[in-house]
C-alpha cells in the first residue's frame, strides 16, 4: 500500500513521505529529537485525503504530559499539510491512551483533555526542556573545543565566541537551540551563556561547565535508554530509528569508535 501511495505523489495527493516529513518537526521535548528519528511513529494510513497516524512510546508509563505534547503537536503538523482531509492521531498502549485520544478526537485542548489535573498549560514545561537542550548543545561544543586544543584552559571557556566554534553538526545544533530560546546567533556572541544570554565570571566557569555536562549526560543517557526500551517493547521498531551519535556505546548497532571519528571529523 505504501508503494502505491508513494507512486501517486506526482499527482499532488497526500503521501506517506509527506506525512512523515511533516512529523519531522514534532520533537520529543525531553529527548530533544524528532519523533520520526526515535521510531515513535507506528503507522501512517492514508485513504484518499484522510489520514490516520498511530504513535507508540517506550513504556506505558511515559509522562502523560510529554505524550500529550507529542500527540497534539503531531495533529497540528498534519492538519497544516496542504490538501489534507480528516486527521486522526492516536497514541497506542499508554496508560492514558483513552484520555489523550479522546481529547485529540474532540479537539479538547490540554485543559479539556486532562480536566482537573491540568492547571495552566504546558508552555513552561516545554521551555524547561528547551533550556536543557541548549545547555547540552553548548556543553558538547565547548567540550569538543577543550579536547581539540590542549592549550585551552577550562576557565577561558567563558570568552569563547560563536565564531570560534568549528562548523559542523554540533555548532548547527547549538545555533538551532539558541534560536529557539531567542538568544541570537551573531558571530561575536558568547557561547557559554544561560537561557537569558547571561555569561559567567571566570571563576564560575568550571562549575557551570560541570553542571552543563551533567545535563548533557542525562539527556544522552535517557535518549538511548528510551530508544532501547522501544526496541524491546516493539520488536522491529529499531528499523524506524535513525542513528544518534551523542551518547552512543559499543553495544549500539550503529556504533563507530571514537578514534575513527577523530580521524574523519564529522
Amino acid at each position: 500500500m505504501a508503494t502505491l501511495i508513494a507512486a501517486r505523489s506526482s499527482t499532488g495527493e497526500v503521501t506517506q513521505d509527506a506525512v512523515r516529513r511533516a512529523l519531522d518537526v514534532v520533537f520529543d521535548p525531553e529527548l530533544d529529537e524528532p519523533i520520526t528519528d526515535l521510531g515513535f511513529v507506528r503507522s501512517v494510513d492514508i485513504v484518499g485525503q484522510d489520514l490516520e497516524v498511530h504513535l507508540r512510546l517506550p513504556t506505558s508509563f511515559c509522562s502523560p504530559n510529554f505524550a500529550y505534547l507529542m500527540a497534539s503537536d503531531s495533529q497540528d503538523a498534519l492538519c497544516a499539510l496542504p490538501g489534507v482531509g480528516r486527521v486522526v492521531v492516536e497514541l497506542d498502549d499508554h496508560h492514558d491512551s483513552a484520555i489523550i485520544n479522546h481529547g485529540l478526537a474532540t479537539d479538547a485542548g490540554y485543559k479539556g483533555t486532562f480536566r482537573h489535573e491540568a492547571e495552566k498549560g504546558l508552555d513552561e514545561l516545554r521551555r524547561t526542556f528547551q533550556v536543557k537542550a541548549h545547555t547540552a548543545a553548548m556543553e558538547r561544543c565547548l567540550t569538543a573545543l577543550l579536547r581539540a586544543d590542549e592549550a585551552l584552559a577550562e576557565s577561558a571557556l567563558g570568552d569563547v565566541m560563536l565564531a570560534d566554534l568549528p562548523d559542523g553538526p554540533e555548532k548547527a545544533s547549538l545555533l538551532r537551540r539558541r534560536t529557539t530560546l531567542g538568544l541570537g546567533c551573531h558571530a561575536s556572541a558568547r557561547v557559554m551563556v544561560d537561557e537569558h544570554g547571561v555569561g559567567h565570571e571566570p571563576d564560575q566557569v568550571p562549575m557551570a561547565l560541570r553542571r552543563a555536562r551533567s545535563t548533557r549526560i542525562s539527556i544522552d543517557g535517557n535518549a538511548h535508554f528510551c530508544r532501547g526500551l522501544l526496541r524491546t517493547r516493539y520488536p522491529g521498531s529499531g528499523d524506524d530509528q535513525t542513528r544518534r551519535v551523542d551518547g552512543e556505546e559499543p553495544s549500539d548497532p550503529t556504533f563507530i569508535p571514537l578514534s575513527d571519528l577523530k580521524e574523519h571529523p564529522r
Partner: protein
Amino acid sequence: MYTKDGESYFIVDAHIALWDARPENIRNVQGQQFIDCFYDYHANLSPESEVWPKEEYLYQGGERLMKDLFTDGYVDHAIFQPAHLGEFYHRGFGQTDEASALAAQHPDKLTYNHNFDPRNGEAGLDQLRADAERFGLKGVKLYTAEWHGDSRGWKLDDPMAYRYFELCRELGIRNIHIHKGPTIRPLDRDAFDVADVDHVATDFTDLNFIVEHVGLPRLEDFCWIATQEPNVHGGLAVAMPFIHTRPRYFAQIMGELLYWIGEDRIQFSSDYALWTPRWLIEQFVDFQIPEDMTEYAPLTTAQKKKVLGLNAAKMYDIEVPAELRLPEADETETGPRQPEAADLASV
C-alpha cells in the same frame, strides 16, 4: 560478602522487593502495563544469561528471594522498599505480610521498610504509628507517582506530607527513601521534578533522604540538589544495570555522583527482582572508568566498598566485621567533592 583479588566487600542491597504481579492479583490494565514495563526494563538491561522468562518474573516468593540474594548473590543484608500500588493490584504490589514475616525470620539478613501516603490523612498517621510498632521501622519508601482515587500523585512538600515527616521524626524513622515519578500531579510540571526533595531536606535536616534511581531520568537535577543538602543520598536502583549494556553511561553516572555528592552518600542496590545482585556486584567490582574519560578520576577500591555496602550499613546500623570497615572520606559537606581529582583540560 564478595571476595575478589584478595579484597573483601561487605554487601548491602539497599532496595529490594517481594512483589506479586500474577494475573489473580492484577486489578486493571494499568497493573498489567506496570509489570510489563518492569519486564521490559529487565529484558532490555540484563545480560542474556540473566534474563528470566516472564512467568518467573511475576512472583518470586521468599525461598527464591533468599537464594537469589544470599546464597547466589553475595548479599550480607538487604532492605525491603515496597511500593503499594493499591490502585493497580488487589492485594498491593509489594507483599507486606510475606516480606515482613521473612524479615522477622531473618533479622540479621533483612530489614523491612514500609510506605505511607499522606493522602490517607489523619487515619494514615494512626496507621503509620501502628506500622512503626509492628515492623520496628527505621525507614520508609515513598512513591510520589502512586495513584489514589482521583489523585495521581503527590509532592513531598504538601502540607499533609510534612505532618507525616514530623511523625517519622517522633517515631525514630530516619531514612526516607524516595522514588520520584512519573508523577502526574501537577501535570503542568516535569513528572520527575525533584525540587520538593530540596524543600523537605532543608526542613528536616535530622532525616536522611535517599533519592532512588539517583533521580533518573533527572540525574542533573538530583546532583544539583544533593550537592547542596548534606542529608540527601543517592540510591543506585535502576542505574546499576547500565554497567552492562551502557558502561560508558554508567561511568558518567558514577563520575558525576562522586563529583557532586561524594563517596559516602551512594548506595548500591539490585532493585531485586528487577535484576539479581550477583552479576551486578561482580561487574561493579571489576568496573573502571574508561581511560579516555579523563574528566573523571578512576574508581578506588575503597569507593567501591563504600558504595556496595558500607554506606547503607552505616545508615541502618548494620554490624560490619571490623576488618571490612573504612573511615569516612575527608570531604566537604556540600558542593563539589575533590574537583581537582579529575580535569578534562589536561586531556
